């Protein structure tokens, strides 16, 4: 087991594409870290540099405190599971699992017992004598995972290993991976596109964009305190509603004004937003922070919503509406499963004011405010 430290790491490909741009990150020993970001943001490149498959253009990479920039992938004691699995097609499943151990001259009896153990763990015992071409996608995925597990490496790198699976299998493999991490306690870096994987699997999420790290933090921390509008609009579906508005004085306090709607700012945030009083801002409202009934003590504020449509999903209903006025910006609001509204109907909902986020329209960064639990 080992920590992985990236210190101002940059990767410029020969075609002058800078895929990773001065990234610094501390992955703790035994941590389950998620890399999340849009396609092409440099997640795989970062993973490949950690594995040693891609040369590092500048910066330092430390594994377990040792600088490994020039260390051969074979000597980094790290296992990687590729998106397309990359199982050796000419070897049986058992040989696939044994390959890394044989190269390291592990004793035959030890290899056998490790394979037996891992095969039992992943439920692939009946497949051991098959070739990869005779396996289903889910089985291949488990074999690829098994090939990494038998090595008992210092860290696992997973590059979207679940993306080829159907929804059911993905859900169960997600749970398997979490259980595995709980029992092994090995450092895991998991790359994903998937919101649910990002929120549920990792101890921390590292959100990347255009070769930069935008924000690192525990899933709920990132979700409730997005660093900028990119993170706010990237995490969760439907994402945070980002509405153009202003901060205005409101008696002795402040209010966020969007269209004709005034949202009083909780007293605890006044100091944080005071510098933007009288200026345009972007107001961020999560779809799940609206409710049908007002809460006393000025905790909520009423909002008029002009229904465009409703999406009845089963466990919940997504209300798509114009905010505040019929020509107002479009918002998505998450309501309980029995909520209904007709197109054109005006619905008054109540926004939970402490959940408000305000962003600077120039820098797109959040105006940092105290975090309410």
């Amino acid at each position, binding site marked *: 087991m080992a920590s992985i430290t990236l210190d101002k790491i940059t990767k410029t490909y020969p075609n002058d594409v800078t895929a990773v741009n001065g990234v610094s990150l501390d992955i703790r020993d035994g941590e389950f870290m998620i890399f999340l970001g849009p396609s092409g943001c440099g997640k795989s490149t970062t993973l490949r540099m950690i*594995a*040693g*498959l891609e040369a590092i253009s500048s910066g330092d990479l430390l594994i377990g405190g040792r600088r490994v920039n020039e260390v*051969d*992938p*074979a000597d*980094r004691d*790290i*296992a*990687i599971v*590729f998106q*397309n699995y*990359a*199982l*050796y*097609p*000419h070897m049986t499943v058992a040989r696939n699992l044994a*390959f*890394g151990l044989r*190269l*390291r001259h592990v004793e035959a009896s030890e290899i056998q017992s490790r394979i037996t153990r891992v095969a039992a763990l992943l439920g692939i015992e009946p497949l051991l004598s098959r070739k990869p*071409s005779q396996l289903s996608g889910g089985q291949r995925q488990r074999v690829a995972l098994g*090939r990494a597990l038998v*090595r008992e490496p210092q860290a696992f790198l997973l590059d979207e290993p679940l993306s080829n699976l159907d929804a059911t299998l993905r859900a169960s493999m997600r749970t398997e991976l979490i259980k595995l991490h709980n029992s092994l306690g090995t450092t895991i870096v998991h790359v994903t596109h998937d919101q649910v994987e990002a929120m549920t699997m990792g101890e921390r999420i590292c959100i990347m964009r255009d070769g930069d790290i935008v924000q690192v933090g525990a899933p709920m921390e990132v979700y409730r305190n997005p660093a900028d509008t990119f993170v706010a609009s990237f995490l969760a579906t439907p994402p945070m509603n980002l509405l153009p508005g202003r901060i205005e004085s409101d008696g002795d306090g402040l209010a966020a004004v969007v269209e004709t709607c005034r949202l009083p700012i909780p007293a605890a945030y006044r100091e944080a937003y005071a510098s933007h009083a009288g200026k345009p801002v972007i107001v961020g409202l999560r779809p799940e922070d609206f409710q049908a009934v007002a809460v006393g003590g000025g905790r909520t504020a009423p909002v008029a919503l002009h229904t465009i449509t409703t999406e009845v999903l089963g466990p919940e209903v997504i209300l798509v509406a114009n905010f505040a006025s019929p020509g107002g910006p479009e918002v998505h609001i998450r309501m309980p499963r029995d909520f209904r509204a007709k197109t054109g109907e005006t619905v008054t909902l109540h926004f939970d004011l402490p959940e408000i986020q305000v962003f600077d329209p120039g820098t797109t960064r959040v105006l940092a405010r105290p975090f309410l639990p």
Partner: protein
Amino acid sequence: MNRIAKKIVPHVILTVFSLVILMPLIWIVRVSLTDKLTAYKIPPEIGTLGLMNYVDIFQRYPFVSWFANSFIVATASTLVALPLATAMAYSFARLNTGGALLRLGVLASQMLPPIILVLPLFGVFLLVGLTQSRVALIIAHLTIALPFLSWMLVSFFEGDMARLEEAARVDGASRWQAFLFVAVPVAAPGILAAGLLGFILSWNEFLFVLVLSGPDTQTLPVGLASLETHAGVEIAPLAAATVVSLLPVFALLPFLRKHLIQGLSLGALK
């Protein structure tokens, strides 16, 4: 009715095509079993059939020597070419050795008329005293086999193969071990197909052998050609010799069918 027609029509067409291809072969087999006079009769006459031509080629001509030379040269040049071509293809595909320029250059050498290559080769062999030797023929055939085989093999080491090797590298393999234990076995169908192609290229090669061989080192194509010049064309023994020289190719046919198609269709991964 319609269904029967659907089955019959393709067979009729295929039979006609097969006959077009097979007729010369059938004609040669017939000629090999008759004498010179009957051979030219039009319309073809079967006459008395016999194996005298087959006996003839072994008694009156150094057929065994031709056959042995062909076999030795084809086998040796293929065995030498195959590992070299595999390594070349690998370095083209994975290390981009020499860039596109070298890759094209290698192939371009095969676009020159062979006669342009054979004369300098002859000069070199003369200098080092290798003319008329089998070694010279093997080296000459290598100059044909290497470009073709390496080009054929490049595609096997491109694409998904890189992922497999990366998996092996992370698993603890050195670059060399990844090549040997993963890349080569996975490309094996292609390498085998390339080997068969190399063997056939050498087996049928005429011009290089004509210029570079001596009386004791002639291979089948040149030996057979000599039957055409002595006293007119010795058509009947020539046919018999042709039939025998086709035998190894027929022997390779089952392998060819299985591996050439598999090897060329690149389905090895997935």
